[in-house]
């Protein structure tokens, strides 16, 4: 084997290797057309090298002509491949120029089919033997064909196309690609076409040795494309790693949310689609594949809570505030579950809400426990109230006795007046009016007592705190007298409205006043003074029950609210503990402080009712 054969075969083998690599890439990724174009170009160069070799080794004009005939086919392939590569890889046109170049080369190919000595010769007279790279090779001598000019035009076109692409890519800022891909194509196209022209013009008596130069173009293209493949592979590896991390993160999130019984959700407000984690779907009784949107969600929400949920969502949208709701849902089997949901709004650059996302939590058990606790609290409050009223029974009986005494004496006086010969009917009329009034008063006392003794549901309503104080003091007026306590009320700025249960708050006030009376039994009667004061402070209503008793040691100020703590000889020590529970259930506070001079002040703070 001589040097030419070795070099030309090596070129062909190298090009075919590159071609096969990129063909494989394209077969695996069909949308990467640049690889197919490169494989085509590279195959064309490989085939070109073989044909070129056969031409140099030809012994007869017929052999030379046949090799050249096939050579023309490889050149057409090269044109198609390289033009396609530039278009798809560098993404430059113009398409018309690309089509023109390929079209001209196509004419050359068609011409080639009708000529036995290729499109370049109409006839080959003889082969000249010339020295090339230390070897003797064949060079054709004959009559040139007119069709050859189409080849020259197409070569000029390909050169122009490559130059144009170089300029465009250069201006785009990708100078390396401009030089390596389209620039090298233009340069070597110029060299190849120039050498061919010189040979055909008879200026140069040499074989077409330009083939090795094309390995440079192929290498440049292959290097760029290969770099992209490597980068894509690296990117793919990175993406896969990120995806793995994301999957792990999602899995951990799912585990965490599942352990916390939380369900993450995202509501695409534009497309009205609610995404929710699998455990969230389970929570709402929604199938894994079932589509969930706002309407479907509202159908799951308990009818009595539906309006409230819609209102809260709207408030969150309008006020750009956090969505915070507790509502019931009705499961397919009719069971009711409690859900706590928190969320926030995501807006676009124009401030329009596009997404809402958050978490939801099953709080059924908590609600059940709270309900049981509330029931127990109410029962304890009732028990405490009954006990308290039991302690007050003597005073209450006296309070009820007063109107009864008045009624009886009035009635008997009336009987006596009417028994006279000339009864004073005006007097009798006054008596009857008093009887009616006193009867009503007795009825009111009984009604208040019955209300306090009632064991019913807690009934929260707007209450005027000063009216509540007066009602409470009226009920225990007798007890205050029994204890020789002078009671003063100081109510600034009325009415002060709060939201609460009348019975329970009266219970608290009566309890505090009774305690205050008990605290003053040790001091002189003339000094037993009780002040019940009410005023507003910020958004709260404050009530103070101030006694002039002996007070409580500082370290016991908090202990007095503990269950079973008592300083009295009677009672279970539940009163203040229950009072604090009641006030807390009204979102308020109850605490005690010693007065600067003497006695104790009990403070109640309740939120004022806003409109």
């Amino acid at each position: 084997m001589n040097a030419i054969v070795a070099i030309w075969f090596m070129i062909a083998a190298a090009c075919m290797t590159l071609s096969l690599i990129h063909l494989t890439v394209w077969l695996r990724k069909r949308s990467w057309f640049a690889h197919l174009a490169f494989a085509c170009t590279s195959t064309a160069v490989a085939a070109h090298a073989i044909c070129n070799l056969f031409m140099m080794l030809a012994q007869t004009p017929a052999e030379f002509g046949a090799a050249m005939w096939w050579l023309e086919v490889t050149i057409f392939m090269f044109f198609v491949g390289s033009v396609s590569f530039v278009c798809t890889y560098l993404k430059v046109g113009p398409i018309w120029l690309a089509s023109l170049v390929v079209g001209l080369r196509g004419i050359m190919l068609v011409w080639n089919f009708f000529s036995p000595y290729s499109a370049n010769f109409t006839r080959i007279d003889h082969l000249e033997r010339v020295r090339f790279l230390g070897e003797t090779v064949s060079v054709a001598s004959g009559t040139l064909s007119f069709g050859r000019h189409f080849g020259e035009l197409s070569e000029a076109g390909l050169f122009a196309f490559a130059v144009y692409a170089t300029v465009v890519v250069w201006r785009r800022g990708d100078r390396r690609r401009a030089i390596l891909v389209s620039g090298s194509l233009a340069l070597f196209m110029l060299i190849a076409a120039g050498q061919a022209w010189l040979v055909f013009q008879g200026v140069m008596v040499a074989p077409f040795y330009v083939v090795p130069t094309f390995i440079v173009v192929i290498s440049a293209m292959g290097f760029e494309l290969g770099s992209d493949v490597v980068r894509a592979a690296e990117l793919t590896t990175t993406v896969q790693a990120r995806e793995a991390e994301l999957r792990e993160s999602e899995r951990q999130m799912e585990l965490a949310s599942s352990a916390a019984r939380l369900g993450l959700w995202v509501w695409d407000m534009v497309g009205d689609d609610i995404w929710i984690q699998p455990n969230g779907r389970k929570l709402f009784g929604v199938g894994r594949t079932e589509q969930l949107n706002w309407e479907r969600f509202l159908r799951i929400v308990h009818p009595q809570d539906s309006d409230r949920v819609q209102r809260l969502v709207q408030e969150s949208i309008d006020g750009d505030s956090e969505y915070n709701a507790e509502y019931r849902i009705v499961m397919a089997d009719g069971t009711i579950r409690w859900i706590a949901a928190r969320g926030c709004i995501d807006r676009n650059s124009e401030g329009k809400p596009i997404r809402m996302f958050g978490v939801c939590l099953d709080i059924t058990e908590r609600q059940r426990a709270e309900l049981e606790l509330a029931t127990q609290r109410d029962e304890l409050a009732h028990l405490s109230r009954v006990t308290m009223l039991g302690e007050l029974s003597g005073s209450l009986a006296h309070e009820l006795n007063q109107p009864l005494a008045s009624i009886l004496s009035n009635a008997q006086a009336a009987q006596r007046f009417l028994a006279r010969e000339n009864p004073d009917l005006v007097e009798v009329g006054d008596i009857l009016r008093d009887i009616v009034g006193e009867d009503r008063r007795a009825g009111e006392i009984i009604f208040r007592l019955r209300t306090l003794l009632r064991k019913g549901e807690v009934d929260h309503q707007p209450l005027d705190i000063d009216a509540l104080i007066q009602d409470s003091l009226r009920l225990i007026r007798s007890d205050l007298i029994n204890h020789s306590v002078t009671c003063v009320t100081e109510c600034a700025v009325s009415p002060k409205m709060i939201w609460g249960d009348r019975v329970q708050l009266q219970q608290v006030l009566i309890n505090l006043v009774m305690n205050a009376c008990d605290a003053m039994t040790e001091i002189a009667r003339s000094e037993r003074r009780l002040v019940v004061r009410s005023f507003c402070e910020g958004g709260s209503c404050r009530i103070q029950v101030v006694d002039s008793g002996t007070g409580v040691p500082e370290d016991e100020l908090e202990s007095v609210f503990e269950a079973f703590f008592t300083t009295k000889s009677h009672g279970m020590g539940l009163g203040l503990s229950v009072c604090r529970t009641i006030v807390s259930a009204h979102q308020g506070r109850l605490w005690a402080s010693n007065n600067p001079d003497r006695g104790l002040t009990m403070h109640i703070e309740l939120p004022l009712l806003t409109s």
Partner: protein
Amino acid sequence: MNKCPYRIAVVDDEESVVRALHRLLRSADYVVDGYNQGQTFLDSLTDHPYDCVLLDLHMPLMNGFEVQARLTQARPHTPMIIITGHDTPESHRLAMDGGASAYLRKPVDGPTLLDTIEKLVEGQPKPDSHPAAS
């Protein structure tokens, strides 16, 4: 019974009770003065001698026992009828030990009260006349 106008004082913090007892006693032709506070009643003693006093125990500022003690001191022979709605053995004992002539529970039965008053004032010297009652 010849009821020349004996003068009776009714002391009770409850306005309606005072008014009712006032009427009942007037129906029996007594002259009646009503008081809502013990101190007011005691202050009036310098102006009016009373033939009988109806006294409630359960009153603010000055309770019935204090009034009873001061009345006994000021007018040791004036009959006192205690009327109370807060009846306990202790209060009954204290009232009777304090010199009460009678102890009645509210609501007070009219005939019983009038009988008690009548018995108590019978032994009293019959007043000739009294100024108009309040």
